[in-house]
């Protein structure tokens, strides 16, 4: 077998392999980007009672321990309820919050790895707060302050699109079952 023949056959072969690898890389990158955005947003609302009555941290809130320790002065954190829904873009989703409040969440769009949300916390006919924010995909945003029982409510608002959200969802569901009389 001559040298020319070797080169004549091998160069295209190696080019094919290289091209296939590059195509694979491109496909992987495209798949990652396209899978980042879905038709719906996974929105989850966890309502937590923070107080100084006792000293306990609900195991269902383990993923929130770090920010809670850094942000709140309370000694007890108990998950009251957790709810997770898939919400279509630009559609309202209402979540009942203990204490006669309710939360309205409207996912507006997705840009630069962030989910744009409109969040309204309403008590009766009075909007306690109305905010528009861009939350890191699968991130958590906290609203706190409304009084409830011996403490205050902390509302953890999580939103994510693409691969399934991290969520405490299974833990939350278990905790809700455990706490519901």
């Amino acid at each position, binding site marked *: *077998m001559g*040298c020319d023949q*070797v*080169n004549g*056959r*091998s160069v295209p*072969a*190696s080019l094919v*392999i*290289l091209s*296939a*690898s590059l195509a*694979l*890389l491109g496909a*992987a990158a495209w798949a990652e980007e396209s899978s980042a955005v879905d038709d719906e947003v996974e929105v989850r609302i966890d309502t937590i009672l923070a107080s100084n009555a006792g000293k306990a941290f609900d195991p269902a809130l383990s*993923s929130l321990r*770090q*920010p809670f320790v*850094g*942000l709140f002065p309370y000694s007890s954190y108990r998950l*009251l*309820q957790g709810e997770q829904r898939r919400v279509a873009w630009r559609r309202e989703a209402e979540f009942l919050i*203990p*204490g*006669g*409040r309710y939360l309205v969440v409207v996912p507006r769009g997705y840009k630069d790895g*962030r989910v744009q949300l409109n969040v309204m*916390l309403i*008590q*009766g006919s*009075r*909007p*306690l*707060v*109305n*905010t*528009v*924010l*861009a*939350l*890191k*995909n*699968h*991130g*958590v*945003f*906290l*609203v*706190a*302050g*409304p*009084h*409830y*029982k011996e403490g205050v409510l902390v509302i953890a608002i*999580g939103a*994510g699109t693409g*691969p*399934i959200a*991290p*969520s405490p969802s299974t833990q939350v569901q278990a905790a809700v079952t455990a706490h519901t009389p």
Partner: protein
Amino acid sequence: MSCRETRPLLPLFFDGELEARQMRAVALHSTRCPSCEDELRQLERLQEVVASHVTAMVEEIDLGDIWAGIAPRLDTRAPTLVQRLRAWWDEREFGWSVRAPAFAAAALALVVGIGMWIQHEDPQRKPELASRVDNSAVLDSVQSSVDSVALVTDAETNTTLLWVMDDAGAEVDPAVDQWDATK
């Protein structure tokens, strides 16, 4: 143990197939009974004769042609994919100018494959880590009907907290408060 009891057990004793208690009893009896001891010696001689005969017959067998019969059957096995690729590679006699980029491409494909596999191995892991590491939020606007609102951020996780100073909220309408049965 009597001779009558011992005799049927002697072949089993010789083959070591009796329980320990019976082995001990047969052995004890045989040392004291010349007749049973003689029976045991006969069994030993019989075994020696059979063994020597079998050995002699095996030695007479010619095993020289066995491999000649096995080798052709081995050659009929289909080569594996790796063997075929290896043979193809060896036949081509590629130089390093070809092998080097081919190996590089293969390594690249392997790295990409491993990366994709790790990425999709546990779809819940990545978002979980991301949410722990970065919960950052950019607030475009905040409107509130309460006296004051505070915005705090946790430095470790970039988690943003919107604190609503809702003093009026302490007085909750029991009629709509399905959660607070004590009020």
